[in-house]
């Protein structure tokens, strides 16, 4: 006869093992990046332009480029994503068109990032004649993170209790007033979660910026959104594979900065979200 106690123990052990297996790679990445990257970090590394064919100097233009691109992507994707989410969760009826839109969003999330790169090249760089520029890159990254923002915003909106809407409407508030004053304020934490996820994704992707904005080497900062820019992930790719004899300190230092930048941006969003959650009253 089976021993339920032993079965339970085995199940518990397997579940724990699987969970620990998730932690191990994350821990190793952090440890290795810090161990190998930290020695390369100095004020000069953060604030100087790359020198001697990127084998010395700093990565300042790449940091600035990535900050510009991520900001641009969020500025573009957050309002559109949020408005679309409001439409889908509050206004749309359950019909063929709505189901088609929802299906499109799910599929958009599954498109490989290099395809976004090609799409951005064809649409923004060539068709709209933006050239390889921060604007084209931001728009491409923005489209890439739209599904993340829409999906998480919709979940956030739909998690606001339905009864709040009924109460608001029963007091004679219009549908838009109800959304604006009751639903949205209570959905902001969830919307920010989506924004955090999108932010990290936009900062880290190489393929979408490859053809739309990223410069191999630019010894100066971009002057407007129509300029090309360096970006951290692409710079990391370049110094790891395209330029021979780059010191390991510089490569891992760049990875360290990229990781730290994403974590820092996440931290800011998490603090904002925490402030909103504190005000949550139910």
């Amino acid at each position: 006869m089976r021993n339920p106690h032993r079965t339970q123990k085995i199940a518990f052990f397997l579940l724990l093992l699987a969970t620990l297996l998730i932690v191990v790679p994350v821990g190793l990445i952090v440890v290795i990046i810090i161990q190998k990257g930290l020695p390369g970090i100095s004020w000069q590394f953060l604030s100087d332009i790359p020198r001697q064919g990127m084998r010395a100097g700093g990565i300042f233009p790449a940091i600035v480029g990535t900050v510009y691109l991520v900001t641009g992507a969020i500025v573009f994707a957050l309002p559109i994503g949020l408005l679309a989410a409001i439409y889908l969760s509050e206004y749309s009826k359950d019909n063929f068109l709505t189901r088609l839109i929802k299906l499109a969003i799910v599929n958009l999330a599954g498109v490989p990032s290099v395809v976004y790169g090609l799409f951005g090249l064809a649409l923004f760089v060539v068709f709209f004649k933006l050239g390889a520029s921060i604007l084209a890159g931001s728009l491409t990254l923005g489209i890439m993170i739209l599904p993340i923002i829409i999906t998480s915003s919709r979940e956030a909106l739909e998690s606001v209790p339905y009864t709040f809407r009924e109460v608001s409407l029963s007091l004679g508030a219009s549908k838009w007033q109800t959304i604006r004053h009751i639903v949205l304020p209570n959905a902001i934490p969830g919307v920010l979660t989506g924004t955090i996820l999108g932010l990290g994704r936009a900062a880290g992707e190489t393929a979408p910026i490859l053809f739309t904005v990223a410069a191999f080497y630019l010894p100066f900062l971009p002057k407007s959104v129509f300029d090309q820019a360096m970006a951290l992930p692409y710079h990391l790719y370049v110094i790891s594979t395209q330029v021979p004899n780059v010191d390991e300190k510089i490569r891992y230092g760049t990875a360290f900065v990229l990781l730290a930048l994403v974590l820092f941006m996440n931290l800011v969003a998490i603090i904002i979200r925490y402030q909103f959650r504190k005000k949550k009253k139910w």
Partner: protein
Amino acid sequence: MVNAAFDIKGLNIWFGQIHALKEVDMDIRPNEILSIIGPSNSGKTTFLRMLNRLNDLHINFRMKGRVMFGRSDINKMDIETLRRKIGMVFALPLPLPLSIFENVAYGVRMHGEKNKNRIAAKVEDALKRGYLWEEVKDRLGESAFKLSGGQQQRLCIARTLAVEPEVILFDEPCSGLDPISTAKVEDAMLKLKEKYTIVLVTNNVKQAARVGDRTAFFLSGELIELDKTDKMFTVPRDKRTDDYISGKFG
């Protein structure tokens, strides 16, 4: 004033395939408390939510018949105006996720009032009429969720009063309350009927007997009987009404 707050003729309601209300003809008179009793699934809440058109939110909702509110057909009125004139207190206390003050001010603000003093005056007045002012006047900025269940329900009444409705719909307002809180809410209702028309849906037959001027008995979507409360509770015309109020089923 017109001699009926509501005049309902040939009302039928469906949710998808479900025929929730069948051929209901009735009137609701100004300044009366009309109690609506009946077992669950009898259509009484559907009837109530038809009056302020909250059923319209349901995607499969269909309605036939004519419902006049005063001189206007409710389906031809501006929906925000209709809902402002017909307030609703729900079964469970449902404060909005705002402070005590903002809960009461919400409806007033949504109807365009911007003057801070006038809003504050309306909030105070509504809280007094909801018999809550003394208990909350020093903590208006606190979250409404910090109040007890009975206080929350009186807050919801005050919130409804603040927008100055003509009719107040109560949907089993005491189902989650203890007897003392229930008595307070019933007292409030009896005072309110001087100024408002009240429609009270209740599962509690005794409550209907205590506060209702007239009582309507619904069963399986049909209006079985509508009469003066004391008459219905002493000599009901229909056997089913008698069975229900004497507790033989339901």
